[in-house]
């Protein structure tokens, strides 16, 4: 599975029927003309990057272990476009036969016809953005669908044969109570999806929700105590339902971990295609052009990589730690030594001891991981792993 020459692909579709109030990702409503133009630019970019990389690597580009089509709302654009993108990827890269190919869908944009098309195009994992099971709550955060529409979409996915489905849920939404949230969690789990992502809402600066909260137009956020309670009880509720936590915010049935996401934490190389997409390749991180007009004009014709950052040895060590520790399996001291030629203890001994002694980190032989208490304050801990 963990092939040395494997890498991942991410494809960004920056369009939505309507932007959710809390969203600060690159996404916006668009007309058919714009969507078509974007598809062409994206296909051009895939060809351009493939050629660049083949040239740089003397034809040895390695194989694609996973593809993730995210957004925005990928299911908002014509299904033929999705098929065309995947076909182009297969033409330009060697996709492993058992590769995980995920796509995000929003309830209310999915139809039977679309779902069949996705299956045919090779998509084998669907991620459904439910966020909340409470219709009033969904309306408060600007979602276009209801619990009932979600149920229809979920049923469609199952009917056409998808056997790997993720449901996204959010806690700490405006006006949400602990009981409502936990009920929703159980309802979602009762559907027996293979994977559940449970994130806590973070009000990002510049979002509509931020303004609404400031003006009193949005229902108040749950108190800090409630928020913490929601987060902590998520694990317990899902465990009862047969899900295990494998990452800070991700739960799944055995063997159904999202390979694509784990790749991020394990520092597997990936190429991102599309507006503002991020890439990590040969220890360099960059983001694509994030202005739509510029992207449309340039993608496929010239380099649209922006802000390339070549990671230093220290950056790499820090990432190894703070990304690896997001997974409940944690990081391996042996792997650290193998990658950097220096013991983890020598670089991070004092930080590890500090947090181990107060029960936020735990050591198990070769492995180091966050405890449950540590997960709750993981940012605070991670920041201590950055090196000067």
């Amino acid at each position, binding site marked *: 599975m963990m092939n040395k020459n494997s890498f991942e692909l*991410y494809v960004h579709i920056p369009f939505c029927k309507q932007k959710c109030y809390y969203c600060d990702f690159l996404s916006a409503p668009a007309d058919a003309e714009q969507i078509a133009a974007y598809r062409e630019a994206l296909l051009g970019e895939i060809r351009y990057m493939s050629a660049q990389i083949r040239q740089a690597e003397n034809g040895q580009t390695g194989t694609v272990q996973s593809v993730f089509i995210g957004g925005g709302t990928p299911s908002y654009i014509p299904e033929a476009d999705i098929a065309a993108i995947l076909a182009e990827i297969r033409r330009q890269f060697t996709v492993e036969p058992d590769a995980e190919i995920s796509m995000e869908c929003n309830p209310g944009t999915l139809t039977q016809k679309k779902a069949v098309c996705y299956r045919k195009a090779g998509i084998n994992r669907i991620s459904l953005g439910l966020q909340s099971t409470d219709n009033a709550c969904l309306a408060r955060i600007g979602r276009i669908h209801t619990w009932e529409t979600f149920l229809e979409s979920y049923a469609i996915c199952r009917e056409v044969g998808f056997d790997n489905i993720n449901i996204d849920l959010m806690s700490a939404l405006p006006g949400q109570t602990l009981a409502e949230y936990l009920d929703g969690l159980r309802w979602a789990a009762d559907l027996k999806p293979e994977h559940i992502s449970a994130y806590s809402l973070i009000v990002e600066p510049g979002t509509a929700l931020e303004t609404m909260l400031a003006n009193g137009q949005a229902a108040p956020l749950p108190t800090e105590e409630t928020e913490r309670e929601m987060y902590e009880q998520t694990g317990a509720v899902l465990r009862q339902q047969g899900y295990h936590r494998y990452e800070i915010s991700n739960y799944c049935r055995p063997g159904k971990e999202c390979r694509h996401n784990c790749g991020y934490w394990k520092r597997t190389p990936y190429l991102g295609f599309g507006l503002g997409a991020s890439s990590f390749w040969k220890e360099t991180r960059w983001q694509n052009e994030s202005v739509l007009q510029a992207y449309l004009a340039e993608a496929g014709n010239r380099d649209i990589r922006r802000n390339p950052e070549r990671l230093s040895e220290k950056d790499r060590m820090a990432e190894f730690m703070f990304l690896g520790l997001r997974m409940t399996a944690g990081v391996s001291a042996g792997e650290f030594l193998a990658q950097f030629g220096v013991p983890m203890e020598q670089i991070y001994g004092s930080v590890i001891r500090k947090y181990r002694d107060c029960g936020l980190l735990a050591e198990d032989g070769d492995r180091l991981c966050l405890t449950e208490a540590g997960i709750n304050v993981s940012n605070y801990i991670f920041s201590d792993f950055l090196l000067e």
Partner: protein
Amino acid sequence: MAKTEQNRIRNFCIIAHIDHGKSTLADRIIEKTGLLTSREMQAQVLDNMELERERGITIKSQAVRTVYRAKDGKEYIFNLIDTPGHVDFNYEVSRSLAACDGAILVVDAAQGIEAQTLANVYLALDHDLEVLPVINKIDLPSAEPERVKHEIEDVIGLDTENAPLISAKNGINIEDVLEQVVKQLPPPEGDPEAPLQALIFDSVYDSYKGVIVFFRIKEGTVRPGMTIRMMATGAVANVVEVGYFGAGQLIPCEELSAGMVGYLTASIKNVKDTRVGDTVTEDRRPCAAPLPGYRKVNSMVYCGMYPADGSKYGDLRDALEKLQLNDASLNFEPETSAALGFGFRCGFLGLLHLEIIQERLEREYNLDLVTTAPSVIYKVHKTDGTVIDLTNPSNLPDPSEIAFMEEPMVAAEIMVTTEFIGPIMELCQQRRGVYKGMDYIEGTRAMLRYDLPLNEIIYDFFDALKSRSRGYASFDYDMKGYVESKLVKLDILINKEEVDALSFIIHADNAYERGRKMCVKLKEEIPRQLFEVPIQAAIGNKVIARETVKAMRKDVLAKCYGGDITRKKKLLEKQKEGKKRMRQIGSVEIPQKAFMSVLKLDDE
């Protein structure tokens, strides 16, 4: 010829209660004497330190030489020495006065005599200065110049018949002041041919010229090339340059002789060689005896000053040495704190002085400081009969070794309009004051006399006084000696660990209230920690107040969409940057500003 020149010199200062218009009058004098054109005049030319301009008060003595053509057709040299007005700076006033022969007393035509007016006049009379009263702000609607004149005659006993009635702000009758300076204030005396005898009243450090010494020549003459000796320190140096003070600049000249005020440079590198108050003489032909120095200045308020960045310890020491050169009332010695590392225990004249030094260190020397709670000097009488002067609460001996403790008292004079006598007396009672008497001045105003413990007035007494009298009360004090007192050491424990930098000495009756306020304040200032952290105030083993800093809220990264690791890393970097401004006390991270916040606990 030298004699006539001496007759045409006037060395004087301006003394006043704060805000009565001293600096404004100085500006007008400089303007009217024509040394500067109006275009060159910045407001308040004398206050050239950035800090002074912002606070609107004068901190350092400054001197300026101007030339005045009087109505008798002759040109007179005015050496105007500026003095600070705040009670903290009596010492600096005193050393400025020693360089003068006369003083202009500015009194506000509406407010009349205030506590500092009196204090400054008495200082001037102590130095045998001729005092010329001037009534300022006569153009205010509330001005009552005649009443104020009577007050000056009654209370101080100065003749006010010829006192100029002026408005410094609007330039009214400034000529009158200049003429009176010529007529009323005496010229200096002294023999230019006698052995050199000059009093150092200030000095500054210049990175090109070395130490610049400001002095007043009593006898003799000084010129470049002369070998001089500092009588107290014994340091010998060769004079490179002498000169006088233009407005904001040094103007070299050929020589300076008896009666003159000026500066010299002599490539003096060591700031310790030129002590303010020392006498400069000629090495080859010394004068018989040094001039009487100044009343030795005693620091009254102490606190620990620590560099926020431990590696800046050496920079802090250098900066303190340079400031001390120019501010003899500052003293310091190294100390260490478990919480704050290496730093200095510094002594100040008062809290304002402390704040100004702190700001100067931060602005002029670019240092980031953490200071501990100010303390006065307590006398600790031990059971073995020895007495120690305690300037750092952490050094208090074990209670079993203490027989009793004493604290310093001040004799305070508070001038207040009669309607506010009640609230002010109440304030003094709260601050453990002992009533000593009251005198009425002009029927509507009274001078209250209280003995007050110094540690009750160093924090916020002045602010409290102003707020209870709608700004009308004025205040001055003198040290009065020590009295026995029921004092205890209040410790602050954070997560059960004593933080030495937060300990202080307090009267037992006030300990509970202060401990409670400190805990509340610290709780506000200390961000949430990984765990619940108790903050306790304790006397010995007894906890008298407690607050709790709650455990940190959930702190988890949001969904890591599309692998944008760079953005997440930036968030972590920002968080790490925030941690740098913290002090690690055990497993608790305390922001630097928490140490400062407890210095000012508002009266709620």
